[in-house]
Each structure stands twice: as structure tokens, then as C-alpha cells.
């Protein structure tokens, strides 16, 4: 039995000016399956942490009340299970069975009851391997499945899922949705946070939308909520089903060649591949996990030396430097020609403010201070970051960090842009801005290479596709 009651609930993390959640009134009955929506920064994760009893009283300031089964969640911990985004930082033990047993051990369950529970939890999530399988040998989707088993082994009556598929490729995400669907029973209350609605809707019977300023914006069955608020939600960045995204294919033929890869390979990460990259063309690189897509992006970006084959830049891209391969160029020369956007934006942050981050590249390539300031201001404005100019890059939300990392690559006006999963886990609004931005660059004659799992992105933007196969299965 797990019902949730929130009355005027609010939470402000210690040291923050803004309330993470505020003025929230909500009742969730036993056995309900609720999808929690809201723009990034609406406080969804904070709400889940509060329900899981993971906000110690001294870590912030609380308003109103929050109750799980009429109790303070901090004292009802055994009722609640919480699954996070990142499987890497949820697994504790080296062997799968031991990891699932970790929770029951913490609760002091007698040893003879633990292993049957472990086996049952593994079965409920459809785990394919035995207890002795090494957790390091699992794919991201399998690891997340195991993490779910670890949560279910505690038999929570309130299950909280915080974007459980955000870090996974489509195949891994499907694994988790199947596992959640089979694992739920009539006694489990579910609260799910998820951006990708089409996939999440079969799991839920109620949708609650948090308003950005606090409180509840919409509440009801999925049909009712989307009929009444669908367009507004889509405009705020929620992936509402049935709201198509505009197509932005190239209207002119591709231009001159910028970069050519001949029999490029980096065994065992990447099997041999040849391709050309042209100006005014968006090239999408697709393929299963482990096929070496990210490795290819690093090679094309001049960041990694190929072990076999070669990469040749044309004079159009590199001028007199065209005779040396990109990975031998000095970094300031490289960023003026090829910009790289990494999958994890935080890897690329070097300075302490957003504005400095944007100014770094132009300064390195020897622009005057006036030119630097003009570039920075234009990019801040273009990517809706002006209000955050003095913020520390590490404090940005996922969407803001992504916009900043793309903006930093554009600051040096490279002719070629190489992006690794730029739309991964982004809300609809950021997604559309990125597509629009990339399309403009392409139409201005820039070359664009994107490694991606995102079929909508490929459909909206890609003029040409390259498919990589797993290096071990390639002939």
C-alpha cells in the first residue's frame, strides 16, 4: 500500500536562491501509474528525491508536507525504490547476483531469504545472465536492467523512475521499458519521469505536468492532458506524441569535398571504412553500440590518430596544411577548421563562466578582443544563454550544457562540425533549436557530420547516411 500526499510542498536546496519545487499539491493513490512531466528545472528530480526520503532535513529548506502512506518519507524508506539515469553509478558490486543482494542485505533480510529474492528480481526484469556474471561485462541497457532488479529486490510499493532510459541507446531503452512493464504488479504505485512520451505512455494511466513556476499545470489521463495542453507542452519542450517535427533537408546539392577517409581503421574499436565529407551537406553516421561511431567522430575531428588508412583534408578546408593529417595540426589551427561536440558536454568545459567558455576558442585563434566580444554576444543570444553568461558551466542543466557545448564549437567558425549524439536526452525545444542551427550552418556551406541513434534527427536533417557495423561482425 503506497499512497502519496503532497500539500503545498516546496524544497530549496541549501545555498540556492531558487526553490527547486514549490506550491505543489498532489495526491497519488495506491496502484496508480503516473507520468511526471515538466520542463528541465521544474523540480522533477527533487520531487523524486523527496519521496525517496533522500533529502536530509539539514540539506535545505522545506515548505508544506510530503507523505508516503501518511508517514514522512525519511521514515518510510523501505516502501520506496528509486532508479536513476546512469547505470554506471548505481551498480555497487562486481557480480550481478551480489549487486541485487546489496539492498536486501542493507535492510537486514535473513541470508536464506536473500537469494530467492535475488533470483525472483532477476526473473522479473527478464535478466538473461546468471548471478555470477560480471557487472562490467554488461551493456548499458543490461546494466540498467540489473539496477532495476536491485531496486525491485527490496519490494518497494512505490517505484520511482528518474529518466531511466535517458543514458541508453534505443535498444537499451526498449529493454528497460519491457522490464518495467513485466515487473509492475497491481500493488506497485509508479511515478515515472521521462521526456520521450511515445515510449512511456503504455506504462502509465495518468499524466501530471509540473508548472515551471511551481505547482501543477495539468493533471489527468494522457488523452485528456494532451488534448487540452498538447501544443503548449510541445512548445515548452515536452515530446508530445503526434506533434511532428519540421524537416530541414538541404535544398541545394552538396558542395566541394572537405575531408576524405580512406580505409580508415582503429582495431578493435573501428573496422575499416572509407567516406567523404562535403561542404553544404549533413552526413549522419549510424550503427549499433560498439560499432565505433564515437571513435570515427574522434578520428574525423582530428583528435585521435588512425592506426590504419588515412584522413586527408582538402585545401578548401585546410589551405596549406592540407598535406598533413588533421590529428597532427596544432590545436588552435584545428579549431578554426574542424569543430567537435562531445557526447558529454562537461568533458569540454575548461573555464569557470559561460562567457569565458565561448571566448576561449576565438582568443586561442588570435582574434581581437572586440571580435571575441562580438562572437560571444552573438552566440549567447542565438542559443538563449545570455542570462547565464556569468554562470559556471558545471551548474547548467542538460539542455543548457548541450547548447553551450555546441556554441563553443561554433565560436571559432570551423568549416566542418563533427557531433557525437548532440540530441541525446534533449527536450523537444532544444532538439528543434539544434536541428535549426545545424540546418542553417549546412545551408551556409559548412560540412556537418553527426554520429547519432536518433531516428527523428536523421529524418529531419540528414542528407546522406553512413552505416557502421560491429568491427567483429564485419567481413
Amino acid at each position, binding site marked *: 500500500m503506497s499512497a502519496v500526499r503532497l500539500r503545498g510542498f516546496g524544497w530549496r536546496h541549501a545555498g540556492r536562491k531558487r526553490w527547486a519545487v514549490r506550491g505543489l499539491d498532489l495526491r497519488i493513490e495506491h496502484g496508480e501509474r503516473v507520468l511526471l512531466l515538466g520542463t528541465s528545472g521544474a523540480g522533477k528530480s527533487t520531487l523524486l528525491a523527496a519521496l*525517496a526520503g*533522500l533529502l536530509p532535513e539539514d540539506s535545505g529548506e522545506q515548505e508544506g508536507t510530503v507523505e508516503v502512506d501518511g508517514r514522512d518519507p525519511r521514515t518510510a*524508506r*523501505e516502501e520506496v*525504490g*528509486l532508479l*536513476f539515469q*546512469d547505470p*554506471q*553509478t*548505481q*551498480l*555497487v*558490486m*562486481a*557480480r550481478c547476483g*551480489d549487486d541485487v*543482494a*546489496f*539492498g*536486501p*542485505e*542493507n*535492510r*537486514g533480510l*535473513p*541470508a536464506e531469504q*536473500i*537469494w530467492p529474492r*535475488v533470483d525472483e528480481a532477476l526473473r522479473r526484469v527478464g535478466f538473461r545472465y546468471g548471478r555470477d556474471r560480471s557487472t*562490467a561485462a554488461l551493456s548499458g541497457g543490461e546494466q540498467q536492467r540489473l*539496477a532495476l532488479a*536491485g*531496486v525491485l529486490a*527490496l519490494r518497494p510499493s512505490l517505484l520511482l523512475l528518474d529518466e531511466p532510459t535517458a543514458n541508453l541507446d534505443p535498444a537499451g531503452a526498449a529493454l528497460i521499458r519491457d522490464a518495467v512493464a513485466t515487473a509492475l504488479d497491481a500493488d506497485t504505485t509508479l511515478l515515472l519521469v521521462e521526456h520521450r512520451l511515445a515510449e512511456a505512455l503504455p506504462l502509465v494511466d495518468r499524466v501530471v505536468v509540473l508548472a515551471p513556476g511551481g505547482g501543477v499545470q495539468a493533471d489527468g489521463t494522457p488523452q485528456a492532458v494532451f488534448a487540452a495542453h498538447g501544443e503548449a507542452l510541445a512548445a515548452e519542450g515536452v515530446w508530445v506524441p503526434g506533434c511532428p517535427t519540421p524537416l530541414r533537408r538541404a535544398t541545394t546539392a552538396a558542395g566541394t569535398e572537405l575531408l576524405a577517409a580512406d580505409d580508415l581503421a582503429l582495431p578493435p574499436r573501428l573496422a575499416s571504412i572509407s567516406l567523404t565529407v562535403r561542404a553544404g551537406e549533413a552526413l549522419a553516421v549510424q550503427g549499433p553500440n560498439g560499432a565505433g561511431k564515437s571513435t570515427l567522430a*574522434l578520428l574525423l575531428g*582530428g*583528435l*585521435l590518430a588512425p592506426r590504419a588508412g588515412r584522413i586527408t583534408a582538402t585545401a578548401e578546408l585546410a589551405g596549406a596544411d592540407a598535406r598533413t593529417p588533421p590529428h597532427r595540426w*596544432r*590545436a*588552435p589551427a*584545428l*579549431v578554426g577548421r574542424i*569543430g*567537435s561536440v*562531445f557526447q*558529454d558536454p*562537461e*568533458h*569540454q568545459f*575548461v573555464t569557470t563562466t559561460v562567457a569565458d567558455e565561448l571566448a*576561449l*576558442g576565438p582568443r*586561442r*585563434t588570435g582574434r581581437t578582443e572586440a571580435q571575441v566580444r562580438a562572437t560571444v554576444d552573438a552566440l549567447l543570444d542565438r542559443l538563449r544563454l545570455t542570462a547565464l553568461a556569468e554562470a559556471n558551466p*558545471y551548474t547548467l542543466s542538460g539542455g543548457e550544457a548541450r547548447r553551450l557545448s555546441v556554441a*563553443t*564549437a561554433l565560436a*571559432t567558425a570551423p568549416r566542418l562540425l563533427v557531433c557525437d549524439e548532440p540530441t541525446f536526452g534533449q527536450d523537444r525545444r532544444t532538439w528543434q533549436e539544434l536541428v535549426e542551427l545545424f540546418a542553417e550552418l549546412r545551408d551556409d556551406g559548412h560540412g556537418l557530420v553527426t554520429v547519432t541513434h536518433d531516428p527523428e534527427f536523421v529524418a529531419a536533417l540528414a542528407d546522406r547516411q553512413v552505416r557502421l557495423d560491429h568491427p567483429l561482425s564485419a567481413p
Partner: protein
Amino acid sequence: MINLEPVTRPDAPLARRNPVAKLAAALLCSFILIATLDPVTPAIAIAFELALLPLFGVRLRVLARRAMPLLFSAVGVLVTLVLFAAERSGRILAEAGPFLITSGVLITALGLVLRMFAVALPGLIVVATTDPTDLADALVQNAKLPARFAYGALAAFRLVPLLAQEWQMISMARRARGVDAGRNPLARLRLFGSTAFTLLVGAIRRGTRLAVAMDARGFDAMTPRSMARRQHFGRADGLLIAGAAVLAGTALTVSIAVGAFRPLIG
């Protein structure tokens, strides 16, 4: 790359002993050896340790590969002492310019190198024969260490291999931002520092997320923890520790008997 996976035959009689017993035996050997400066005690101890290797199910070749970094530092110690030792007693063996190689210097250097190996070998054997999970279990169950410490360390340990990947990734990301050091050694040092800082920030964030995830699964619960895996500490385990004490004692006694013993203090 540091390799810490166990490489033993699981049925080897001493490898199967309780991890805490193995650890205690290794510490015992190491401590006694630190107490003396002569080359005889560690030489005898090394002979014992190598003779016992088959009982631990570890092949000499595997152990040698793991001891490789030790070998390099041994050469370093040897060269440094031979070149720069202040005390140059004993017979002169060779003379080259300002360098004077005497028998006294060589014996001191040899003693140091042997001690280094004798102290490190038991530890290497323990690591090579022990599953980290078993060690954490035994530390909690038999050595009564707090579970929060033992399993916290074990979980953090799982994230260590990620650090090497992360380092490479951050270095490439810096280059993609136009940051490189070229041939300037000062710039190189600065770049190394800032890369290390980013790595540290990332590691702390990841560690924090892991800690929250562990607490969400009741790791911070006040109820006493139960044990899904049992570690037994039996008579054989006690005997292993006693045996280690006897071996270390024998090495010391022989050293004193032949007059080679030089205590660290006094």
C-alpha cells in the same frame, strides 16, 4: 594499467584461506622485514615466499609480470645508491671519475632491494589470490570493519578503470577546444594540472551519485546489515597466520645467528 583481478587456481589450498587471514599473514611478514636493514633476512623470506607460491596456485610468470613496476624501482634504487651513497665503506670494487663503487655500498643497496621485494611480495600474492568482494565480506564479517567503509571502498574501486578512459576523453576534448601545450614544458604542466582537476571534479560527481544510489537502496539504514555471502574463519586460517609468524621469526633468527642482523632502530 594496474591489474588487480585475482589470477589464482581457485582450488589451491592457501588461496582458499580467509582473505583476512591472508592479509594478516602478509602484514605480519612485511612488518617484521621492515624492522631490519640486513640483506639476509629478506633473502630468506623471499625464498620462503617463492617456495610457497605453488600452494597459493599462482604461477611465477604471472607474479613476475605483476611485480614488473617493482623491478624498475629496484633498478632505480640500485643506481641511485651506487652513485650517490654518502657512506662508502668496504673494499673498492670499481672507480670511474667521481664515482666510487665499494662493497659496503653494494651490500646496502642489495639489502634495500631485497627488502623491497620481500615486503611487497606477500601483498602481491594476497591481491593475486583474493576476490575484492570476498575481501570486503571478510573485512566486515571477520575483522569487524564498518560495512560503510568496506563496501563503500569496494564500490568506488569499481569506478577506477573508468578514470583512464576519462583522462583520454578529457585530453581530446581539450584539444577540440583549441587547448594544447605544444613543446612548452610549462604549458604542458599547466595542461596536465587542469586535466587532472577536471578528472577529479568528474570523479567526485560520479562518487556522489553512486553514494546517493547506494543510500537509496538502504545503505544508510540504521538496521543491522545481514550477510548474503558467508566468510568462515577456521583453524586453517589461524594456522596460516601462525605459519607466517614462524617463517618471519625463522628468517630473523637465522639472520641474527649468522651475525648479519642490523636493526632499523638502534
